């Protein structure tokens, strides 16, 4: 056989070993490869005849090398059965728990009608040309500040920036049903175009135009329709007495569609000349008005008949129609900002004296961190909605507060747990380090080392955590255990 052919066989054997070595556990790979290369040398020496290797000899050596695949595979199987490779404490266990939390919170959110309604994207399709007009000196967006007289003047006068107005005011009214029972409802006395201008949908609208013309129409909230009318599907056209006057039911507003101030039981659509008092005005912007609206709030000066100027404020609906997603993003931002206040966010506290982790290990370490955060964030979103709407089926400010606070708290402490958990994960196998042992004496902190030592059950690393950070040992340190430590971690048998 020529030396050229021998060189080819040598390459094949090396490639075979290199390929098989990927089957062996990473911690054992280098030693495994070293042993097989040494064995190959002895095999070659044994088969060589007069310094030459024959074809039959090369075949024999190839058969010998093929055994490396089975050996590496066996090593892999044995590694999996080691106590250090058990499921408990592993990265997979951690991710599965987070996945289960996400699944549970998501499934619960699908069962709660309030959450389902909040997540309905159709609720947040807002006409960008609508604004609410309010007194500029009102301290709160939800205060009623515009008189119906002003509304009537604006509506009838020529406007440059607005081409339509709607009005409503809120009042508590006594309502008498068909069975003469009395109830107190929170009623919005609104201009007839209110729902049309806002583009709000109604259901069960089966009243003719003539009927509506004769008697003011009333739109019931879904909650009232269910509570006082037993969700009667033939409610359309029924007459109810509201505040001493008859009103005909012309529809039911689905839950959560109303996002403006006031949690209404009904909307009484009556002619403008009947309305009185202070309320809210919604205006539709002309193209010129839209150009002026370069932020969510805009100052408006209104000139009245006596030439006195009135300072007003136009407020976009964007803030009120962000839905749970906007609130969630805001709470997330707060939690991320607050995180450094409750724990150190540094993960770069690991120092390897020798044999630092490979690039693939480092990548896996970061990937695991990202996976935990990716699983935590949607879990928090659904869990906070579950908490906020477990008792409420409608949008309410109270539910929004619960969502905001619960999102903030869960994200903050969830991220804290993720950071602390990540610091206690072996950089090689991502298992949690265990078996904490107190080392040293507190009184000798500044003269000797005092702290806690934890070890990876897989036998890869030791973690030293100082009890009191000092200038020479400020943060935790990892000690990489080479193969000479391996015998300590092999099963329970001696040797």
């Amino acid at each position, binding site marked *: 056989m020529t030396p050229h052919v021998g060189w080819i066989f040598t390459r094949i054997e090396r490639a075979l070993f290199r390929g098989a070595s990927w089957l062996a556990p990473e911690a054992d790979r280098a030693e495994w490869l070293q042993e097989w290369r040494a064995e190959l040398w002895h095999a070659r020496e044994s088969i060589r005849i007069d310094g030459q290797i024959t074809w039959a000899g090369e075949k024999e050596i190839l058969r010998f090398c093929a055994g490396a695949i089975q*050996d590496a595979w066996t090593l892999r199987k044995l590694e999996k059965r080691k106590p250090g490779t058990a499921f408990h404490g592993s990265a997979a266990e951690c991710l599965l728990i987070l996945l289960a939390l996400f699944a549970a919170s998501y499934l619960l959110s699908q069962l709660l009608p309030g959450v389902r309604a909040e997540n309905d994207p159709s609720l947040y399709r807002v006409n960008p040309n609508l604004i609410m007009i309010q007194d500029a000196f009102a301290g709160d967006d939800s205060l009623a500040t515009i008189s119906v007289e002003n509304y009537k003047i604006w509506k009838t006068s020529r406007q440059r920036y607005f081409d339509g107005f709607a009005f409503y005011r809120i009042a508590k009214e006594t309502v008498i049903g068909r069975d003469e029972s009395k109830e107190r409802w929170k009623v919005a006395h609104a201009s007839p175009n209110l729902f049309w201008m806002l583009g709000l949908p109604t259901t069960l609208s089966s009243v003719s135009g003539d009927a509506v013309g004769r008697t003011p129409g009333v739109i019931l909230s879904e909650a009232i329709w269910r509570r006082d009318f037993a969700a009667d599907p033939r409610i359309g056209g029924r007459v109810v007495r509201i505040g001493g006057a008859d009103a005909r039911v012309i529809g039911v507003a689905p839950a959560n569609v109303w996002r403006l101030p006031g949690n209404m039981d009904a909307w009484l659509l009556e002619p403008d000349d009947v309305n009185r008092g202070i309320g809210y005005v919604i205006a539709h912007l002309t193209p010129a008005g839209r150009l002026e609206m370069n932020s969510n709030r805009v100052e408006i000066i209104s000139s009245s008949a006596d030439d006195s100027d009135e300072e007003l404020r136009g407020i976009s609906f964007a803030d009120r129609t962000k839905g749970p997603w906007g609130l969630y993003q805001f709470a997330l931002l707060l939690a991320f900002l607050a995180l450094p206040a409750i724990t150190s966010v540094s993960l770069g506290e690991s120092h390897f004296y020798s044999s630092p982790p490979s690039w693939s290990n480092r990548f896996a370490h970061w990937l695991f961190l990202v996976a935990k955060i990716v699983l935590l964030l949607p879990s928090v979103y659904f869990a906070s909605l579950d908490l906020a709407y477990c008792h409420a089926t409608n949008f309410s400010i109270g539910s929004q507060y619960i969502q905001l606070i619960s999102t903030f708290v869960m994200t903050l402490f969830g991220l804290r747990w993720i950071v602390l958990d990540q610091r206690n994960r072996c950089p090689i196998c991502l298992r949690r380090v265990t078996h904490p042992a107190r080392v040293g004496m507190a009184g000798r902190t500044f003269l000797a080392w005092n702290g806690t030592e934890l070890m990876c059950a897989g036998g890869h690393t030791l973690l030293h955590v100082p009890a009191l950070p000092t200038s020479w040992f400020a943060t935790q340190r990892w000690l990489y255990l080479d193969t000479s430590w391996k015998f300590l971690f092999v099963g329970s*048998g001696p040797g």
Partner: protein
Amino acid sequence: MAPETKLSHTAALILQAIQAGFVYGFSIMEMTGLPSGTVYPAMRRLERDGMIRSNWEKQAIADAEQRPPRKYYKLTATGNLTLEGARKRYPLLERLIPSEEVSRT
């Protein structure tokens, strides 16, 4: 592993070979006639079960003989006890590989 643990014939043969002085993988293969795909995995299991222990030859020795260092295997106390039990089960073991075989360590 308990001393009374029953070994397969292959494992017993490998233990017997190591005790007889065939202390690295290829020499065990040569002695037992078993293929590499059987001998090495069996030695991994025996090591895991605490019946044999391995250690690397010193580099200086290998350098002096102009060869790569070998990984040597040695029976532990448990391994010796288990092998004694195995000899009763497989009486031909000692005839196949006599214990007084020349030591190669």
